């Protein structure tokens, strides 16, 4: 028993497995890109890449955020309807109440933090199952969004009109070439949140809670606070996603948004976040999101009728998770 060699090799295999999962998913992304490019010449255009990026920001941002509750062993289902709620609120204040754009955006972010806080309190202090608590806030944000905006669809200032500067956060045109600034932001945020997850107390305790909540409590850590923080992060990123969504799609309609969270969570899980908590990486979540986004945007390019796209997306989802399950099963024996 005095030999360290046995656990050491095990350790390496675990690391390689985590990296491996990410690596496989990355390969899937590359494979999908190659496949779509081969089949459809239009897919190869720069503008297509721009579109895919544009449509991926909000899902990517949500996925970054939701990685945290997922790692605690929870989930946040409220981010999808939340996104619409925040965007509606911000847009309503800007368009109907004449607030400056920055103030509307700030308000959207504030609201997202409040909803995140509510989720955190429900889960951490009131001990409700995360699935359920966030299901309720999902319904609540859906309702609130409609009510805050008087049930009106809201169009954020379009490009060319005053107040459209916020669109430049995500995309600027230099000499006629469009630069996907938003993607840089997403990468930057991934780096920041990966740092937070791996090198700060918030991240460390997020993993600790997902790993063994009781033990974390007994280590004298203010678990309630850090547990809440995971949901606040998730909420805040839903708020950021709301701004990205508004900047890309302009018009936000009440009653929508349900389903966004599944894309984000699905992306995170494909990217290697364990549904039972403790394991996951922000970078992996991002890669996972691109699998979903590529399927969504790529399938129309190969001339597939829309209804088949959904079936294929469903099958790919199961396939991605099954590969992981099979691999774990093999390793176990």
């Amino acid at each position, binding site marked *: 028993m005095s030999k360290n060699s046995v656990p050491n090799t095990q350790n390496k295999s675990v690391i390689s497995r985590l990296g491996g999962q990410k690596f496989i998913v990355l390969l899937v992304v590359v494979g999908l890109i190659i496949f779509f490019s081969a089949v459809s010449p239009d897919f190869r255009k720069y503008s297509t890449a721009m579109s895919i990026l544009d449509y991926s920001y909000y899902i990517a941002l949500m996925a970054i955020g939701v990685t945290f509750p997922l790692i605690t062993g929870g*989930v946040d289902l409220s981010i999808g309807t939340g996104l619409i709620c925040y965007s509606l609120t911000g847009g309503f204040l800007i368009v109907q109440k004449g607030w400056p754009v920055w103030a509307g955006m700030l308000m959207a972010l504030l609201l997202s933090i409040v909803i995140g806080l509510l989720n955190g309190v*429900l889960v951490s202090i*009131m*001990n*409700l*199952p995360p*699935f*359920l*608590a966030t*299901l*309720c*806030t*999902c*319904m*609540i944000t*859906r*309702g*609130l*969004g*409609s*009510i805050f905006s008087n*049930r009106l669809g809201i169009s954020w200032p379009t490009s060319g009109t005053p107040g459209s500067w916020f669109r430049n956060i995500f995309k600027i045109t230099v000499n006629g070439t469009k630069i996907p600034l938003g993607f840089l932001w997403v990468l930057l945020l991934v780096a920041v949140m990966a740092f937070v997850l791996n090198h700060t107390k918030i991240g460390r305790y997020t993993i600790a809670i997902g790993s063994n909540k009781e033990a974390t409590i007994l280590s004298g850590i203010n678990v309630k606070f850090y547990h809440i923080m995971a949901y606040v992060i998730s909420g805040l990123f839903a708020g950021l996603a709301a701004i990205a969504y508004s900047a890309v799609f302009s018009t936000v309609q*009440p009653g929508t948004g*349900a*389903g966004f969270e*599944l894309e984000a*969570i*699905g992306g995170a*899980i494909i990217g290697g976040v364990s*549904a039972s908590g403790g394991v996951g990486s922000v970078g992996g979540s991002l890669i996972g999101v691109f699998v979903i986004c590529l399927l969504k945007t790529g399938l129309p390019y190969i001339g597939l*009728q*829309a*209804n*088949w*796209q*959904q*079936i*294929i*997306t*469903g*099958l790919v*989802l*199961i396939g991605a*998770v*099954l590969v992981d*399950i099979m691999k774990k099963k093999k390793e176990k024996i």
Partner: protein
Amino acid sequence: MEKIKHNPIVEKLGFNRIILCGVLILMYVFFTVFGDNFAGLPRILSALNYAYFLGFLSLGVTFVIATGGIDFSIGPVMFCSALVSGYCLTSYGVPVALSLVISILVGTLFGIFNGYLVAYWSVPPFIVSMASMNIAKGVASVFTKTQSVSWPQGTSEQGWFRNLVKVGNFPVGLVIFLVFAVICSIILNKTRAGRYILSLGSNKEAVRLSGVNVKKWEMLAYVICGILVGIAAIFFVAAYTTVQPGYGDSYNNEAIAGCVMGGTSMTGGLASIGGTVIGVFIIALLQEGILALHFSKDYQLIITGIIVIVAVYADVVARRRRN
């Protein structure tokens, strides 16, 4: 207070269920007082229309949640069942009775698919739901060529199936729904299937090590859910005629809410069919009442969310105190 709690009936149903009943009655009184023309049969019938299909969905998902799993493909699968069978009826001339069977069959197939992946391949239920939700929508659109399907009107020759909901003003659907609820309750509490489903929701490994084929029983829960979702589809079209491909998600949350409000634990092992029925009635009454108060549906969602939170929190507190 303590005395009430130890009354055998109360103990059997659970104190919180009794409170929930009270909430239901209070809500009715409230809406009658403040709503427009709320008293009377038409409102109740309208609320029941909503309660039927939602109720069957809730009953179904109760079994899945009892195993500690989750299924939020139920709404889209319900639509898929209604669309596929309805398309057979309207476009291929399949008789109504057979179409109804097809509807249940489609639901069952999805139940088998979900159950097999969860139980035998250990795919997390969350992922399975997500996938089968997409697949259900896709299959429905492919099958119907992306067309909505309207089932025959009550006045037409083929409209007899609407009698399942009501004959004249008599709510036949209520009777059928309650009969199914009783059957579900018996399955859950009096049969081997129910015993194993609840037990494996509480401690799957212990049940497996007792020599029980847990995979089979876990899958069965999803299949039962599928069957009930198929039935829900029938009641949906009998009340609302038209279904469109690509929708149905919004009913997931309400069905799960109704089930959980009634005391079924999300972590598995505890389920109450009676609670589910009350929960569904609360949601249905709420949606009718909110309209009668001239509020938008948004308020219904918010209030449902709050009721679920309070109900579950009460259960959490009660359980903590007991331990």
